């Protein structure tokens, strides 16, 4: 049997060099990148590249004969099978077999791709298009894995694949139309390929040069939003969010996601004066930022209910409150409805990375007073506040476990459970309140949770016993003595998108982080009609430091837990998240607490009228003052001179320079000068003006805090977009569109513009008239082509009734004869030009002329003879 060749050896060589080699090179690069991202490939990109090369080269050679694809592909499959059987014979042991078969599968897969590509290049005309689409898809996947976006990384990701794409399409067409019998075909190919690269590189270079600012803008824009992006990356979640200014806040929502990312950043330091009955043992309390009552079952996300029908949160913006002035609002927490075992606890919070706008305190806080950071700690802490809250004496961060052997704590737990067991249930509680805090989503999967809750708490009657039963369930062990539930930051996702993740957590996976435990607990409690909610904030870790009452809060302490409502006691924290037994947390080094706050003698708050930089004095228009812990507000806005020579100036973000003070700024100036507190004044008649008039002016000021006026900020749901707004895609798109439009118009109009130019030039002499005539006729669909000038002129004359023959004759004489034609002759010939143009126009209707002038092929044909 003789099989004919589909391609000559020469053509095969060209295919190998021009198609296969670049493809192999590119495949190596792609495989390298894929290996970096996918573990299954086992980082053997060189081997895989070789498999691919083998596939493509063998296939190219094989299919240069006229073999049919399907039959040969079946043969190949047979070979694969035989190879597998042989491997099976050779392989010793199960592990080897597994290892080999994975390797062999990868080999088969990659070799087959190579084989298919080889066939495509050899025989399948439109294969290159499919192939480059495939490569582009892979490249997009690879690029999506880029974690640090830089202009360079994007360019490096995209340019090679674009270059390859264009090249391979061009080269495959070039080879398809190649005449290998042409004697100089090597030179021809070299010329074409070099020319192609020249043009492409030129175009890319020009684009890069013109748009280089935009490319770098991508980088800067990315740097701004990178943290947001990583936060919102589909399968990773943080309990905190990073703000624009780099500070940290709690997120307003808590999706149940596949993994949790944490950092070791110090967020804030707090002093909490809550101790157990013995007065020395610390009773840490969780610091609450917000609470979630809403659950979106579609996205499986817990979120703040923006309507908050039973608002129970005092959430001031510390950055908007003047230094040392107190803001309190116990009305905000009226829904805590706590009357029993209640005490007031105070805390001082010193912010490190925490956003200046955030207010964190153990629930349920009702008062805030911004305080100054002692000067020696000014570089560590940006701002600080003092907060007061009502705390149930039954509340504690200790729930799941107690410090080992601490009998006092165990007694406390026992006592508080006993007190809570006396609880009379929820009779007499507002039914709307109860309904709000016990609602849960409907559905089969949630019914399973309800059933589970019923099973777990079957023997318990009181709320606290049910709570303890749920806790014990999470801590229970299975039939093998292994913990039923485990803590992990990476619980993974259920296979089914949109599945009930809590159901998955409770019944299948049993691994999760705080959001899972809190969410599962919440729904079990609500299933039992116990009013509860998820609180979010920071876990307080008692590290028994040498500074009692001081706690350090790191980013990985961001936490979510359950608060249960007890009638008369209000909301009590219960944390059912089980400890992480696998990763032992290294104890965080606690620093020195910012002690040494001075007693403030006088505080003035107002607007700067004048700044005297020479004398270092400020003229302040006073709005309110604080004197001897009493605040006075004045409507008269008296002026007051301040000496700021020794003052430290702070903004929300930390210490700044004195020179940054400007006229019109709203500041709070504090003085620690003890002399000021010894002034005599009649308490009854005291007003701000009175006190000011008695102060020795200028008042020596020790600390100034700038209050930035609150801007009306609409909550930005998608802050990423707002950043990208600075990098104006729309403008770029529009300008690109406009440029494209202008170019299009020019291209469309070009034939006509050329005609105008020719027509204008035709005034000069016969030669340019002839050019204009030829151009016009060509554009109107009468190219001269192979007609001799005189034949052509005669034809045209017959067509349009013109005198082109006469013109041509004189023109030729003028051009080539030894004796030029007479003046009169030339004038006569020249005179035929205008009537000629008019005759042509008269013969072709203007609509047709417009269409003909739009034809860009005609001028191309005129200037570049392409027969």
């Amino acid at each position: 049997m003789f099989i004919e060749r589909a391609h000559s050896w020469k053509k095969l060589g060209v295919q190998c060099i021009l198609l296969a080699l670049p493809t192999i090179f590119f495949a190596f690069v792609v495989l390298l990148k894929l290996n970096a991202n996918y573990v299954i490939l086992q980082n053997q990109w060189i081997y895989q590249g070789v498999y691919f090369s083998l596939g493509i080269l063998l296939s190219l050679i094989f299919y240069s004969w006229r073999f049919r694809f399907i039959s040969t592909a079946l043969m190949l499959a047979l070979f694969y099978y035989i190879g597998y059987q042989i491997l099976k014979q050779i392989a010793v042991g199960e592990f080897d077999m597994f290892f080999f078969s994975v390797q062999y599968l990868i080999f088969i897969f990659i070799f087959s791709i190579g084989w298919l590509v080889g066939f495509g290049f050899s025989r399948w005309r439109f294969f290159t298009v499919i192939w480059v689409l495939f490569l582009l898809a892979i490249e997009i996947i690879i690029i999506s894995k880029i974690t640090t976006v830089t202009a360079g990384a994007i360019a490096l990701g995209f340019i090679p694949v674009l270059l390859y794409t264009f090249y391979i399409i061009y080269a495959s067409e070039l080879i398809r139309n190649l005449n290998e019998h042409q004697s100089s075909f090597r030179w021809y190919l070299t010329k074409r390929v070099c020319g192609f690269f020249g043009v492409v590189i030129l175009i890319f270079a020009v684009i890069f040069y013109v748009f280089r600012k935009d490319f770098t803008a991508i980088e800067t824009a990315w740097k701004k939003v990178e943290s947001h992006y990583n936060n919102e990356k589909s399968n990773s979640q943080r309990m905190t969010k990073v703000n624009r200014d780099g500070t940290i806040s709690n997120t307003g929502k808590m999706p149940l996601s596949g993994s949790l990312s944490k950092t070791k950043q110090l967020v804030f330091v707090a002093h909490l004066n809550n101790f157990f009955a013995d007065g020395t043992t610390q009773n840490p309390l969780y610091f609450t930022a917000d609470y979630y009552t809403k659950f979106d079952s579609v996205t499986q996300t817990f979120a703040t209910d923006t309507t908050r029908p039973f608002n129970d949160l005092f959430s001031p913006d510390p950055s908007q409150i003047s230094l040392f002035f107190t803001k309190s609002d116990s009305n905000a927490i009226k829904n805590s409805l706590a009357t029993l075992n209640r005490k007031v606890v105070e805390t001082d919070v010193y912010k490190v990375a925490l956003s200046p706008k955030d207010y964190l305190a153990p629930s349920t806080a009702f008062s805030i007073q911004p305080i100054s950071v002692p000067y020696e700690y000014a570089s560590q802490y940006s701002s600080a506040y003092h907060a007061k809250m009502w705390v149930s004496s039954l509340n504690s961060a200790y729930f799941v476990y107690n410090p080992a052997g601490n009998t006092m704590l165990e007694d406390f737990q026992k006592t508080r459970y006993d007190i809570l067991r006396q609880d009379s249930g929820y009779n007499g509680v507002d039914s709307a309140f109860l309904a709000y805090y016990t609602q849960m989503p409907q559905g089969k999967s949630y019914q399973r949770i309800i059933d589970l809750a019923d099973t777990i708490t079957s023997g318990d009657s009181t709320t606290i016993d049910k709570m303890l039963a749920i806790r014990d369930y999470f801590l229970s062990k299975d039939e093998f003595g292994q913990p039923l539930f485990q803590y992990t930051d990476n619980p993974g996702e259920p296979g089914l998108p949109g599945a009930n993740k809590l159901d998955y957590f409770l019944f299948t996976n049993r691994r999760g982080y705080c959001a899972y435990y809190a969410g599962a607990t919440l729904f079990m409690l609500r299933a039992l009609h116990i009013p509860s909610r998820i609180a979010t904030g920071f876990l307080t870790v008692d590290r028994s430091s040498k500074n009692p009452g001081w706690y350090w809060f790191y980013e990985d302490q961001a936490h979510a837990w359950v608060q249960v409502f007890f009638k008369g006691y209000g909301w009590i924290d219960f944390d059912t998240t089980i400890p992480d037994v696998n990763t032992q947390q290294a104890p965080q080094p606690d620093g020195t607490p910012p002690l040494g706050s001075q007693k403030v003698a006088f505080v003035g708050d107002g607007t700067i009228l004048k700044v005297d930089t020479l004398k270092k004095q400020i003229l302040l228009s006073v709005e309110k003052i604080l004197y001897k812990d009493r605040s006075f507000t004045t409507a008269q806005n008296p002026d007051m001179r301040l000496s700021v020579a020794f003052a430290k100036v702070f903004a929300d973000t930390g210490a700044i320079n004195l020179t940054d003070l400007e006229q019109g700024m709203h500041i709070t100036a504090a003085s620690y000068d003890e002399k000021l507190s010894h002034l005599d004044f009649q308490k009854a008649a005291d007003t701000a003006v009175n006190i000011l008039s008695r102060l020795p002016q200028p008042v020596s000021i020790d600390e100034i805090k700038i209050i930035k006026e609150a801007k009306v900020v609409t909550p930005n749901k998608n802050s990423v977009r707002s950043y990208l707004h600075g990098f104006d895609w729309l403008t770029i798109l529009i300008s690109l569109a406009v440029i494209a439009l202008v170019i299009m118009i020019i291209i469309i109009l070009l034939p006509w513009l050329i005609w105008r130019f020719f027509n204008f030039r035709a005034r000069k002499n016969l030669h340019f008239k002839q050019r204009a005539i030829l151009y016009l006729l060509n554009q109107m669909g009468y190219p001269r082509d192979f007609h001799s000038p005189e034949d052509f002129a005669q034809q045209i004359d017959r067509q349009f009734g013109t005198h082109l023959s006469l013109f041509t004759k004189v023109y030729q004489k003028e051009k080539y004869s030894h004796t030029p034609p007479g003046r009169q002759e030339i004038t006569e010939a020249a005179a035929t030009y205008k009537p000629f143009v008019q005759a042509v126009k008269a013969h072709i209707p203007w609509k047709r002329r417009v269409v003909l002038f739009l034809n860009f092929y005609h001028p191309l044909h005129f200037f570049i003879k392409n027969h």
Partner: protein
Amino acid sequence: MENEMSNIEQNVLATSGSVQNIEKLTQNIEQVIKGKTKQIRLILTALIAGGHILMEDNPGTGKTVMAKTLAKSITGGENGQAIFKRIQFTPDLLPMDLIGSYIFDEANRDFVFKKGPLFCNVLLADEINRASPKVQSALLECMAEKQITVGETTFPLEALFFTMATQNPIEMEGTYPLPAAQLDRFYIKIHFGYVDDDTELEIYKEYLDIQQNQQDIQQVLSINEILELQKAAEKVYIHEELLSAVRNIISATRNNDEIILGASTRSGISFIKCLKAYALINGRDYVTENDLQILTHPVLDHRILYRNKEARAKLLYQILDAEMDRLSKLNLTRKHQ
């Protein structure tokens, strides 16, 4: 310079009468051969350029009539008319059948040379490719040298010796294709071709008149006048750019991968001669690009050996078109006084 200029003008003036006669000759022939103006002009071009013509076409397209009419239109031969001879070439034809031979004269007891058909003014060599190469080369030698050497005697041919050879386009059995070197001797090769449908109908309608016309051909041009025209043609002005155009075309045929054998320098000279003759026929004393366009194919096509049919179909057109394009863009406008 001034002198030279007037000289040329004088020449043109002198030949202008004969140029009008050429017009008459054309009209004469057109009375008999319908719808072949272009071919007639090309034949006359070859005649005036002092060359020969090869007509490639099927039998019955009017080649013989054309030759006869041409001969009849010329005066000044032995019978007051140009001598017209026709030889039908066959494989068994011998050179002496063309040239003539020594015959023993009984009366003078000596060998006398009996002139063959080559001693004429207009020769129609029918189916030239059917003769053996020996005969072909004998004919072609005469065409080039315009003389015949038999033994020791050299016999000059007539001053006006114009060969019109025909050959069949289809490769038939028993033909000896002319080698490229011999084809080169023909200044022009034309395809006679069939006339278009309208003309054909006209011929059928008026064939009696045409036959009558053939009988009544008037003699419009003398041999001397033709010889003078040949001399005048030599003096026709050809612009340097056109000369370089000829040079470019010729060299382009040599530097092309699709062409095995390009045009020779001799063909370049023939080309220029034909250009000049054609210009003269058209009543001009200068060559134009129009002439170049019309003559390139008839003059060069048969001298080029192409690699394949595709190349034959388009290559020369491309070469010519590139050159025509260059000329068309060339601004040779002179400053007028």
